């Protein structure tokens, strides 16, 4: 093989060949010319280089690029460079080889077909997968080739060469564009190789040779042409071919075997290769994987490499070209045998290499369209040339070559089938047809090539662009190993893409299946952040608020920092209330508001009435008590000192009658209240000579409290003379009076002072009270026509017979209120009974019906009945006595039905208010016959005994029992003939009575002591006693009993009885009763 190669390479340089071409006048004269020139040029340099050219020559002949070819060429070049050969010889050899090749072509092709078909059977799968990659590889090779050419062009000194290069370059560029390799790493390797090539001495020459070859290609460009050339050239070769014919046939047959063997051997080699690669760190997993995919190819390649190496060695060993050429045939034969035995490593691999070269050539012939492949092959020769120079690094490069040559094989094989038959048919034509036909064919081929290029280019435009860039870079920049790594990455990417495609398709399928089950939606949008803009102030405060500022405050009214100072005080009130609010005030408090106080004032007003009443009454009581107290002490003291005190008395008291309005008046009557025993009523008759004082014509009545002697309690005024008067039977609230004009008047002492006239008399204001009610206005029919002699309240004791005890029953009276009867007796014997009525309400305007009622007065008298007392009595006795003048009226205290009237005939009439008259009708003196003697006094015993005393004007005193007409006792002349003025029983002692005669002698009788004469007689000389009244309280005999004396001068004396007269003896009442019984 080496020899063959050398021959072939040198064949290309044979001037004879070239001349033949020129002579044959083949189509392109320019090319020819150029070729000539080049040949000339190169001839001069053949000694230096020739391997590249040689290779190219062979490549042109080869139809499918093969590693083997490359290696053989590389070896050949190496051999050529080292031992410079005769170009002639080479040419001869070449010619011969070509001739043989042509002849052998048929056989080869058949073999190849068979073999390829076998391979294809294994390879097809791979081809499907890696076709792209292979295409790229091929393209990359093409590119490299071009680049190398470009480099050469740059360096090229001859324009023509450059032009040719450019022509070829344009073609190549087209190809380059069509097919760009993604395997930049390989490019880089190649570029590196190219760089190295550049450095090589032979670079230039080689290129020129290549160019020459290319020219030849262009000239022949088809197998036909080449073949014709070869036929024309090589009669000599035929001889050689005839020799080799058998060999080749054998070779082909062997090849098939060898390939199978190679497959087996491949694994071992692959192991080695792997080790190498690992050592170099150039190849990644993908490389291996790729190799593994091409398991069948690689071993072949590697075998080829090995063979090349062996060949190289063999060539080195060969002393001369001739020998090598001659020996080659021997070698081949030799080699075939050991290869058949399966021992390739030991034996030289020339046979296989030869085979390959033949095959290549045959392919070249058969596949004229695959010019790119050819060109690539031409380029591939370069690395092989490198191998010659860098023998140590050959392995390194060879590995690379392996890789891309694998691709070549595949491509070739894929094309090989189509072309086999065509080639065969063409063979004949090639030999017969000459230039015109060739020309047409060439043009056709070119067109076809272009079309193909375009097709490929359109399919692979984008990688082409990339590669163009890369190639440019590569051309300028010396490549490093790092770029080689990039190569692997690209494989990774490619693989990734495939994988990802698969995955994607799977996922797509999956997604279509799943999408039915899944609901996808994007209806909801999530708010990830919502940051409102900060307003200016906040921003300011945030950024500047804390810097250079300070919080401060200012207060007007600076010194008053107390926070409470500027607020008003809260008003607060304490109040209380109570529930139920039955008393006057329901609420109150320490500080009442005006309203509340007003309310309370109203309440107080309401209260004030009652309070005034209360105070009025209370004050009276208090005053009385105080005055009593004082007067008592005073009187006691005074009594001792007083000279004019009675002998029977141990003290005397004078009422202050020295008042202006009482001046000059004589006291006509004195009366004590039977209930309020200290209350004294005195009647001051008008003075005989009316003075200047306005009241002088009127009678004045004074109400005294004997404990308050300083001044009268009340002052009553009446216009006419008052003949008789009495208190109300209960409390001393009413005063009744009978007047000389026949009227009965009532004073209500409870009336307020403002209802009456107030006069300022002396130092004091005196309220002068006029009567509340007067009978003056009452119709005369029911009134008194004569002067009223006596007024007596009818005792309210129920008429159930005589009660043994004399009792006024004040409680009953009070309980019965003011409703009681009043009896009034006038001189004519008419006894009127009046009912005392208290009006519920006073009328300030006065009453229209009750004309006698004073405006504002509340008490009035209603006429009840009238009793004519003296008529009855005079019915029988009228003849004798005539009409009796009634002078005195006394009601029996225990039985109010009975009354006793004193007459002027010394008789006392006994009458009843209703019912039958009860005997005795009259109470007569013991003496028979009637004497005109006025009965001046009648007094009923206060101790309940039915005994009364009668005093007569003749000075006789009788004591009558109620039941008998005749007196129990009669004392005539006890007074010395002086008329008896008044006779009164003592209130504390039942057996004692007092008699006042007209000579102002007071006789005190004590029946226990002596019943014939008075126990003592007091003679008052100086001031005549005009009236006398006995007072005393049976309950308190020791301290309170006495006699009040009214003097002519108007003085009123109160004489307290001494103990002797006041304190009763235990059996005193019984004694009285005994006396009464004794008398009967």
């Amino acid at each position, binding site marked *: 093989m080496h020899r063959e190669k050398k021959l072939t390479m040198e064949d290309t340089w044979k001037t004879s060949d070239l001349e033949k071409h020129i002579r044959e006048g083949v189509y392109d004269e320019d090319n020819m010319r150029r070729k000539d020139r080049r040949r000339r040029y190169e001839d001069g340099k053949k000694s230096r280089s020739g391997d590249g050219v040689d290779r190219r020559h062979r490549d042109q002949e080869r139809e499918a690029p093969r590693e083997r070819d490359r290696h053989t060429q590389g070896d050949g070049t190496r051999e050529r460079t080292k031992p410079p050969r005769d170009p002639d010889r080479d040419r001869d050899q070449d010619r011969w080889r070509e001739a043989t090749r042509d002849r052998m072509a048929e056989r080869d092709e058949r073999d190849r077909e068979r073999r390829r078909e076998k391979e294809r059977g294994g390879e097809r799968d791979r081809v499907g997968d890696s076709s792209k990659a292979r295409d790229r590889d091929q393209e990359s090779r093409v590119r490299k080739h071009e680049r190398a050419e470009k480099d050469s062009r740059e360096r090229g000194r001859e324009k023509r060469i450059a032009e040719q290069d450019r022509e070829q370059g344009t073609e190549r560029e087209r190809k380059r564009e069509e097919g760009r390799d993604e395997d930049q790493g390989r490019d880089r390797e190649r570029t590196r190789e190219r760089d190295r090539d550049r450095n090589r001495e032979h670079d230039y020459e080689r290129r020129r040779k290549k160019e020459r070859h290319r020219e030849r290609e262009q000239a022949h460009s088809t197998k036909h042409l080449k073949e014709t050339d070869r036929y024309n050239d090589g009669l000599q070769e035929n001889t050689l071919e005839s020799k080799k014919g058998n060999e080749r046939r054998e070779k082909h047959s062997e090849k098939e075997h060898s390939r199978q063997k190679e497959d087996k051997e491949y694994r071992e080699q692959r192991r080695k290769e792997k080790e190498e690669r690992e050592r170099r760190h150039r190849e990644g997993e993908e490389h291996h994987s790729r190799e593994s995919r091409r398991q069948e190819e690689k071993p072949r390649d590697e075998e080829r490499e090995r063979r090349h190496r062996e060949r190289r060695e063999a060539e080195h060993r060969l002393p001369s070209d001739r020998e090598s050429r001659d020996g080659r045939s021997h070698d081949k034969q030799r080699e075939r045998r050991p290869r058949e035995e399966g021992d390739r490593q030991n034996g030289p691999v020339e046979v296989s290499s030869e085979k390959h070269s033949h095959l290549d050539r045959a392919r070249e012939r058969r596949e004229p369209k695959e010019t790119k492949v050819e060109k690539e092959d031409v380029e591939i020769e370069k690395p092989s040339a490198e191998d010659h120079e860098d023998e140590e690094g050959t392995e390194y490069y060879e590995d690379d070559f392996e890789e891309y040559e694998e691709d070549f094989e595949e491509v070739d094989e894929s094309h090989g089938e189509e072309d086999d038959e065509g080639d065969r048919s063409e063979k004949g034509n090639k030999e017969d047809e000459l230039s015109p036909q060739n020309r047409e064919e060439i043009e056709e081929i070119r067109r076809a090539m272009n079309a193909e290029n375009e097709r490929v280019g359109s399919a692979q435009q984008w990688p082409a662009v990339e590669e163009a860039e890369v190639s440019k870079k590569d051309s300028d920049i010396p490549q490093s190993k790092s770029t080689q790594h990039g190569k692997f990455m690209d494989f990774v990417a490619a693989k990734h893409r495939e*994988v990802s495609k*698969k*995955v994607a398709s*799977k996922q797509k399928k*999956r*997604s279509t*299946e*799943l999408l039915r*089950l*899944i*609901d*996808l*939606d*994007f209806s*909801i*949008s*999530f*708010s*990830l*952040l*919502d*940051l*409102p*803009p*900060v307003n200016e102030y*906040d*921003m300011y405060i*945030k950024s500047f608020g804390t810097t250079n500022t300070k919080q401060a405050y200012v207060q007007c009214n600076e010194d008053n920092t107390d926070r409470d100072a500027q607020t008003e005080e809260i008003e607060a009130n304490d109040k209380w209330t109570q529930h139920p609010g039955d008393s006057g005030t329901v609420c109150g408090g320490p500080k009442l508001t005006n309203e509340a106080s007003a309310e309370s004032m109203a309440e107080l007003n309401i209260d004030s009435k009652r309070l005034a009443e209360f105070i009025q009454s209370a004050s009276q009581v208090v005053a009385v008590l105080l005055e009593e107290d004082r007067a008592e002490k005073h009187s006691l003291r005074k009594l001792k000192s007083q000279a004019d005190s009675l002998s029977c008395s141990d003290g005397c008291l004078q009422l202050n009658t020295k008042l202006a309005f009482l001046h000059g008046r004589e006291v006509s009557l004195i009366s004590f209240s039977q209930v309020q025993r200290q209350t004294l009523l005195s009647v001051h008759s008008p003075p005989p000579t009316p003075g200047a004082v306005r009241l002088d014509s009127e009678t004045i009545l004074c109400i005294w409290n004997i404990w308050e002697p300083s001044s009268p309690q009340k002052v009553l005024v009446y216009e006419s003379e008052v003949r008789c008067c009495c208190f109300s039977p209960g409390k001393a609230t009413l005063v009744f009076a009978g007047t000389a004009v026949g009227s009965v008047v009532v004073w209500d002492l409870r009336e307020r002072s403002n209802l009456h006239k107030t006069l300022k008399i002396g130092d004091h204001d005196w309220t002068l009270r006029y009567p509340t009610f007067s009978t003056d206005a009452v119709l005369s029919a029911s009134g008194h026509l004569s002067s009223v002699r006596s007024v007596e309240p009818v005792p309210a004791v129920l008429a159930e017979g005589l009660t043994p005890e004399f009792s006024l029953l004040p409680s009953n009276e009070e309980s019965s209120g003011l409703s009681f009867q009043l009896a009034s007796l006038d001189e004519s014997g008419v006894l009127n009974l009046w009912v005392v009525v208290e009006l519920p309400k006073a009328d300030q305007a006065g009453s229209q019906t009750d004309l006698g009622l004073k405006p504002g007065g509340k008490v009035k008298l209603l006429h009840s009945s009238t009793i004519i007392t003296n008529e009855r009595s005079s019915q029988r006795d009228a003849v004798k006595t005539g009409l009796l003048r009634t002078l005195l009226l006394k009601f029996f205290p225990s039985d109010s039905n009975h009354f006793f009237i004193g007459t002027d005939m010394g008789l006392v009439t006994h009458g009843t208010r209703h019912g039958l008259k009860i005997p005795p009708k009259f109470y007569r003196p013991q003496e028979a016959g009637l004497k005109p003697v006025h009965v001046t006094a009648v007094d009923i015993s206060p101790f309940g005994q039915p005994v009364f005393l009668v005093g007569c004007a003749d000075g006789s005193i009788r004591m009558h029992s109620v039941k008998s007409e005749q007196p129990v006792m009669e004392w005539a002349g006890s007074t010395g003939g002086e008329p008896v003025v008044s006779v009164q029983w003592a209130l504390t002692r039942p057996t004692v009575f007092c008699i006042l005669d007209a000579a102002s002698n007071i006789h005190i009788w004590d029946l226990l002591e002596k019943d014939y004469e008075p126990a003592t007689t007091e003679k008052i000389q100086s001031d005549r006693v005009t009236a006398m009244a006995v007072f005393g309280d049976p309950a308190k005999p020791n301290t309170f009993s006495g006699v009040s004396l009214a003097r002519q001068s108007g003085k009123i004396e109160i004489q307290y009885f001494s103990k002797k007269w006041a304190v009763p003896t235990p059996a005193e009442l019984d004694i009285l009763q005994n006396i009464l019984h004794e008398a009967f």
Partner: protein
Amino acid sequence: MEENTAENTYIIRPNYQHKFKVGVAKECIREVLKEELAGTQYNPQQIPTLCRSLADCIKDRLKEVGFDRYKLVVQVVIGEQRGEGVKMAARCFWDADTDNYAQDVFMNDSLFCVAAAFGCFYY
């Protein structure tokens, strides 16, 4: 070769224990933000890298939690606090039954950071 592992399982719903739990994820995010951003000031030079590292950190944390068969997408946005209003929203085309998101916001005086983690279930 790689696909063999996930061959035709056709699980449409995640297991409950592997479901994307918003609370857990949020807590993760919060922790990360707290750790990384505490006391940091806005610095336009450093923020982009910080952003990226935060996103990676959060993603790693979330992976540790074990949201099985979930594709996790973490987005981190950091902006300066200058008082402007900011409104961020997300809209997802997904299966609301299985997919969810968690987000947390970190704020201090100089910056705000919004981290959102979206978990999409691999069927």
